């Protein structure tokens, strides 16, 4: 029981990750894939931040009278991860726009059909 209480946070995060992952691999619409990828990445960020939390800790900013802080290292790592995520999203969306111009569609199946016949 204490295991469940201690870990359910992580399990829900795993569920979120898998939802995002599922959207990426199961859906054919390119924009939906990009959004799924984003959900997947954001969930990984939630996982790292959950790891850093300390019970009764404070945000890691040195303040008078505060001695117990949450761990600042996962925060730093995830700042980087967020930025990497938006960079990837920006590139992916630009590609979607160009693909739409070139193929007239953003559905994977349509594009496949066009590529096979050309």
């Amino acid at each position, binding site marked *: 029981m204490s295991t469940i209480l201690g870990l359910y946070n992580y399990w829900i995060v795993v569920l979120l990750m898998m939802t995002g992952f599922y959207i990426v691999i199961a859906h054919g619409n390119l924009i939906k894939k990009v959004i799924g*990828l984003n959900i997947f990445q954001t969930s990984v960020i939630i996982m790292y931040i959950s790891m850093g939390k300390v019970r009764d800790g404070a945000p890691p900013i040195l303040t008078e009278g505060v001695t117990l802080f949450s761990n600042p290292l996962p925060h730093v790592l995830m700042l980087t991860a967020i930025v990497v995520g938006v960079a990837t999203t920006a590139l992916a969306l630009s*590609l979607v726009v160009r693909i739409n111009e070139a*193929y007239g569609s953003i559905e994977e199946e349509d594009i496949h059909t066009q590529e096979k016949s050309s």
Partner: protein
Amino acid sequence: MISANLPALQVIIPLLAAPLAFLLRKPRLVWPFALLATILTVLTSIGLLQQVLDEGVISYAMGGWSPPWGIEYRVDAANAYVALIVSAMGAIVMFYAGTSIRHELPEHKQTLFHVAYLLCLAGLLGITVTGDAFNVFVFLEVSSLSTYIMVSLGANRRALTATFQYLIMGTLGATFILIGVGLMYVMTGTLNMVDLAQRLPEVADSRTIYSAFAFVTVGVCLKLALFPLHGWLPNAYAYAPSVATAFVASTATKVAIYVLLRFVLTIFGVTFSFNTMPLGYILMVLAVIAILIPSTVAIYQSNVKRLFAYSSVGQVGYIILGISFGTVLGVSAGLLHIFNHALTKGALFLALGCLYYRTGSVHLDAFRGLGKTMPWTMAAIVVGGLGLVGVPLTAGFISKWYLVMAALEQGYWPLAAVALAGSLLAAIYLWKLVELAYFQQPDSDAAQIREAPLSLLVPTLLVTASTIYFGINTDLTVGVATVAAETLIGGVR
């Protein structure tokens, strides 16, 4: 001062060169500047390798903060060797790019390509030289994003879908690595590779670490295009500009393999990876399939770039097969093939670029009578092809030889047979090209084609010649590969 800071300079030179090149704007200025940057990078790699061979492992604390609180750059024989391959190919292909990119891309895109190229080079070197697990992720993304930019510049609209697929799969792989590193971090509290190697054995028997191992390995295998995670590679190589394919094919997967070795051997350790986890067997099975099936698919390709792309998937199989043995001989065979395949595939794609420059096509039909119209280019392709087959006197033979020896050392006779079967398959697709080029007449309009210009031909022949040189003089490559393998397997002291 320079020699003390070589590890940092290795990455800083291309990384700083990229935005500076961007500020220069005009392609006429950008290309020479980029070329200069790549040459300085090679010189740094040579210096770095020399330093490592003389003095042993180099540890450099970024920002002056000692590890594990700061990021450490840690250079040993293994990564100095890989860094040299990456920067050498970076410089040679950049020289070639001057003419090739002017021909293949509209003027306003040329500068952007060269900047992306420099960023990719910086990213790949950053992955290679670092000693911090999270730093690997950051520079992996730098190199991946810049590769997507380069590939997307291909002329055919399929370059766009190829890039998109590459982006999706590549990001999934990188995120898996991030998850794996996170799981390792939560159990040990550190990100530094040496520190991880020392702290992991205490917690190695936990399900979290098993899971971490799985995620990191799967993520990296996606990046190195191990069957069945290779789906992004054929199209990405086929539709990218010639220069992009030549550079990426000779470097990106090799660096990914290095990352695999670093995690599996240095951080997790040989005992954990091969005894506790069934990594050896899984890699062996996948490698065998990779050697046989993609090579067969290659035979049926009519787009020659795609043919050699599938061939690359097969060659990665050879490298992984060597690694799957988990022995010094096996890992050295793998490292040797990293070097030799980088040269061989580099030469082949450079030669294909010459062909594309003159004919505008990389279809099989363009090969008709090529032996007559473009003798030097075709000769380069033949020599490269022989290297893929593993004919004696080529570099490819040396690595195949060591691979077979490593297999026999373990008593795996059937695997030696698989390696030879792969050679046979390669010989078949090589023969297809040879037959068309030398035994058929060129089409009427194709008969007008001249040989490729010197600015393209010289780098191509240089790399091709080196595949023969390193097939004969093996002291450097075998020597360093063996030292590197011993360092990796020996673990961290």
